[in-house]
């Protein structure tokens, strides 16, 4: 069967940027194409995402890139599917390439948000954005003034802790570990060490979530170049997309039936991607997992199948998810410490796993990494995409 390969990746530093997202996008696309050794005239497809949740009013983003880089292509799409958007883009690119309709595709995302402090400084002037944030939620949730998913994540984490006897230190330790990972990443938003005491001493935003256990929104950009076998053949740095699956639950944010601390779509996506790839979860050497809160990380590790329900916090404490452990999870620092430009985040996860499988992850390198996993989500983890990646084998 035809396969698709990632042959070029690039990302900006993550933080607060002053540059226009289009400008960040052009530069990161050029860098990814140089990394791939592919000129724009060889690019067959172009897929992108909005520029942010609070600032994403600009349309036709891929079209502008086609003009700026001189790309005449057979696929163009701007995807808006929340946090999953840029992995939906990778998924579509991969399927079109495998189906033989296109030979290559450039996937990019660039995000620049209106900073929350700017909104807090002028509530009236930004009220249209606050109303827009409120209208993400259905009437039965929005009526209570909800403008972020924080309270829903808080309740999921509270129940998870209650059901499995997990204490506050267990969750704080996750934030500390991700910060330790990020200290090895020169492009991460955070470069100061963090302690359990600092996490538990930070402001309680929405109990039980502390400030240091919650991802800030950041700016940044990333790009990924996918090609078919014809263009990839012989590239010793090529990474194969060995399996990929998307799965959604019939929910929008809060599940009106069932357990709020369980996320069935994650397991379905993981199962489908692993089955297609022929690997088992135990084969995964390195993974990037989309947990936007410290308390969500262990739940995601469990839903993906790395650990049994309730067992991830102990595994994390024992060092089983860090350097030297059985699986290195979120070596980039994850959403919490790499930084979280949501529309870009899935591409940042692909960038990290590609660098790991190429052996180009510097101080973060998992020695001998051969099989990697990317997990992304949208909404309140109402939908998930899982990809399994391995090194191309040109025999």
């Amino acid at each position, binding site marked *: 069967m035809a396969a698709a390969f990632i042959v070029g990746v690039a990302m900006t530093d993550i933080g607060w940027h002053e540059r226009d997202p289009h400008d960040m996008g052009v530069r990161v696309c050029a860098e990814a194409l140089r990394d791939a050794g592919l000129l724009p005239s060889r690019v067959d497809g172009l897929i992108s995402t909005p520029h942010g949740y609070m600032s994403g009013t600009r349309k036709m983003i891929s079209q502008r890139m086609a003009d700026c880089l001189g790309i005449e292509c057979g696929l163009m799409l701007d995807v808006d599917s929340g946090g999953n958007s840029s992995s939906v883009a990778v998924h579509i690119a991969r399927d079109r390439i495998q189906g033989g309709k296109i030979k290559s595709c450039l996937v990019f995302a660039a995000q620049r948000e209106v900073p929350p402090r700017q909104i807090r400084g002028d509530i009236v002037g930004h009220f249209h954005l606050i109303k827009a944030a409120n209208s993400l939620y259905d009437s039965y949730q929005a009526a209570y003034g909800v403008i972020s998913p*924080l309270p829903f994540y808080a309740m999921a984490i509270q129940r998870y802790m209650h059901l499995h006897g997990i204490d506050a230190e267990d969750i704080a330790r996750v934030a500390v570990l991700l910060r330790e990972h990020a200290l090895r990443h020169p492009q991460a938003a955070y470069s100061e060490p963090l302690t359990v005491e600092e996490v538990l001493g930070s402001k309680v935003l929405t109990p039980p979530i502390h400030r240091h256990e919650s991802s800030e929104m950041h700016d940044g950009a990333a790009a990924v170049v996918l090609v078919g076998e014809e263009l990839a053949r012989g590239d010793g740095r090529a990474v194969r997309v060995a399996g990929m699956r998307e799965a959604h639950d019939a929910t929008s944010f809060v599940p009106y039936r069932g357990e709020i601390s369980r996320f069935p779509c994650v397991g379905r996506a993981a199962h489908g991607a692993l089955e297609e790839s022929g690997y088992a979860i135990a084969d995964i050497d390195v993974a990037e997992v989309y947990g936007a809160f410290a308390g969500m990380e262990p739940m995601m590790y469990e839903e993906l199948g790395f650990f049994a329900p309730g067992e991830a916090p102990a595994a994390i404490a024992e060092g089983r998810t860090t350097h030297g452990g059985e699986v290195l999870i979120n070596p980039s620092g994850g959403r919490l410490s790499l930084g979280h430009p949501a529309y870009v985040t899935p591409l940042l996860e692909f960038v990290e796993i590609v660098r790991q499988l190429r052996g180009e992850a510097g101080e973060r390198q998992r020695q001998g990494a051969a099989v990697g996993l990317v997990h992304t989500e949208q909404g309140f983890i109402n939908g998930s995409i899982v990809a399994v990646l391995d090194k191309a084998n040109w025999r």
Partner: protein
Amino acid sequence: MDTKPYMQDRAAEEFFSRLERGEFQTTRCRGCGETHYPPRVVCPACLGEDMEWVDLPRQGTLLAFTRQADAIRCREPDVLGLVELEAIGNVVTRIDAPFEELSIGIKVAFDTWTSPDGVALHQFRPTT
């Protein structure tokens, strides 16, 4: 600033206008008998559109609770909870009690509450 909540469909308009009259009700499909929460304009079980309004249980179990940090309607103390109504499902609601006095699994009962900007909402309060 217009702070009124938006109504996504006719079922939401009807649900909140019934709350103004102290009625806590949802839709039941006259075609197949399925009861929904939240109320629906189309029955997901049979795609029928002929609905009647039936009472929801006024007693429930507190599944989880938190305090909102930033929200546009409910001011501090802004305790938000998830309440399980037997045989119906989970309801996002205001909890009328101090956060510190709550625990998972306690029994709670329905009440109405009018927000500072004049919106009739439901809330639940511990029964003991």
